[in-house]
């Protein structure tokens, strides 16, 4: 017999509170319906009413977690229209902030994934080491989130030489801790039991649903804008693209953990080779034309298409957020797994899972499973696996 387990709408994955309808038979999920739009603010519409220099502040507020990625892609798109190149120092600064943001975002996901499977220790520890990074952001740019570092033709703020040691000190700390987390998480039989062979997304499905970022790289589909279409300082530093073939939640977690190491490598090299000079070029006007900007955000490819008619505002500004595609692939990934795994699988594509406790359920005004219940189901499964290992 088929039953419906609704999740949401107060369950924002990515930038949107969304509504999931899990269709279940017994414990098994057989289908999923997704209803989005609870967070639709009409950015593309507002963007057409703002001037070129105002838009970065708007697109920054699409998502608070990748608040560097959207302005970055927008700025690259406008530079593509006008054939502007940012000065080398600005390119390095943008790269550093983009990579630091990746670390902060992956750590955020890791902590919440720990919370979902009932390891609140993982959550607390991981977020503890994310905190100094936010302090660094505040030091460099004046705000813990929403950094506003990107500007058409350069960077808005400089990284002062006296701040380098502080960044390096943090990277040293992080390298040690990241090794600790990687070992602790990957060697734990219970975590492996929960994550391995759960929510498998095959390579064929990954291509058909056009997923990007760690979701695609965990499924064996190598696509990374930083390698494929290098921009700014990414082709001047040495780093590796991380790809795993398995496609399960564990593979996605591994991609993210190891990517943090690569980000540390990139930031170190950028700091070492940071050129001197100005951080912005003078931009007089944006000619008519069209441009594309791509940036590899922590969750996948951010793509901005901007069209100009030579006036001081964009005519059309299209935003592709990575989770737009990644969330749609949940329809495939969650099928055939138990309800206890659903919360984890839906989280595995790294939607902004900021509001675990906001999940609650309506169906015709009746409450069925709340988010807390789903979490409890998930935690009970972890306990079961734990008991099995103790025997």
């Amino acid at each position, binding site marked *: 017999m088929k039953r419906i387990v609704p999740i949401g*709408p*107060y369950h*924002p994955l990515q*930038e*949107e*509170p969304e509504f999931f309808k899990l269709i279940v038979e017994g414990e098994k999920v057989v289908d999923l319906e997704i209803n989005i*739009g*609870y*967070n*639709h*603010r*009409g950015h593309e*519409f*507002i963007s057409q*009413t703002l001037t070129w220099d105002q838009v970065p*502040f*708007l697109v920054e*507020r*699409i*998502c*608070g*977690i990748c*608040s560097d990625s959207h302005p970055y892609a927008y700025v690259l798109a406008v530079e593509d229209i006008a054939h502007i190149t940012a000065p080398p120092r600005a390119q390095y600064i943008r790269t550093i902030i983009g990579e630091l943001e990746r670390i902060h975002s992956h750590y*955020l996901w890791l*902590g919440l994934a720990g919370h979902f499977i009932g390891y609140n220790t993982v*959550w*607390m520890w991981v*977020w*503890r080491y994310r*905190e100094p990074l936010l302090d660094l952001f505040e030091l460099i740019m004046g*705000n*813990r*989130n*929403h950094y506003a570092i990107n500007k058409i033709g350069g960077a808005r703020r400089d990284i002062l030489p006296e701040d380098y040691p502080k960044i390096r000190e943090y990277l040293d700390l992080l390298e040690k801790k990241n090794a600790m987390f990687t070992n602790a998480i990957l060697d734990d039989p219970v975590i492996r039991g929960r994550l391995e062979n759960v929510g498998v997304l095959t390579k064929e499905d990954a291509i058909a649903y056009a997923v990007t970022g760690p979701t695609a790289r965990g499924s064996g589909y190598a696509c990374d804008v930083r390698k494929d279409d290098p921009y700014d300082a990414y082709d001047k530093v040495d780093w590796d693209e991380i790809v795993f073939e398995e496609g399960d939640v564990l593979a996605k977690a591994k991609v993210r953990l190891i990517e943090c190491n690569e980000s540390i490598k990139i930031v170190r090299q950028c700091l070492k080779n940071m050129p001197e000079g100005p951080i912005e070029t003078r931009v007089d006007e944006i000619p008519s034309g069209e441009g594309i900007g791509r940036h590899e955000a922590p969750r996948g490819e951010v793509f901005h298409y901007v069209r100009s008619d030579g006036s001081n505002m964009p005519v059309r500004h299209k935003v592709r957020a990575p989770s737009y595609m990644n969330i749609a692939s949940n329809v495939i990934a969650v099928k055939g797994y138990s309800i206890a795994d659903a919360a984890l699988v839906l989280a595995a594509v790294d939607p*902004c899972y*900021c*509001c*675990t*406790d*906001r*999940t*609650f359920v*309506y169906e015709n005004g009746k409450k069925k499973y*709340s*988010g*807390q219940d789903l*979490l409890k189901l998930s935690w009970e499964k972890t306990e079961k696996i734990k008991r099995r290992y103790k025997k």
Partner: protein
Amino acid sequence: MANPRLWGLKKSPWVFHVAAASCNNCDIEILDLLTPRWDIERFGIVLVGSPRHADALLVTGVLNRKNLPRVLRVYEQTPKPCLVIGIGTCTCHTHMFESSYNVVGPYDKYLPIDVYIPGCPPKPESMIMGVVKALKRL
């Protein structure tokens, strides 16, 4: 002691987190409050999973056409008296989304908000201060 229920609320407020159309930054900062640096649970403030258990609602983001009825419904489900705490500049007015077709306007047209905490996003310290100020007013 004027109202025993208000007095009970002051000791250990349980909060439920309602995100309208927010950019997730305020939401992340709220979760940050639970982690070791800030550890808000030492003051007895607990995030709960259902509005029916909550003494206070933390609202973030602007209201849009699709989520307004849902947010109002959450407010109706919360036992009264309850505090409504608006977190972030979006809750003070409509921030930069004023001209959008899908945004329906400021919160105070629809919901009685007790405290506004401005900032984009507000720092965790100022969130704690806002909640403390709200409780002092009771």
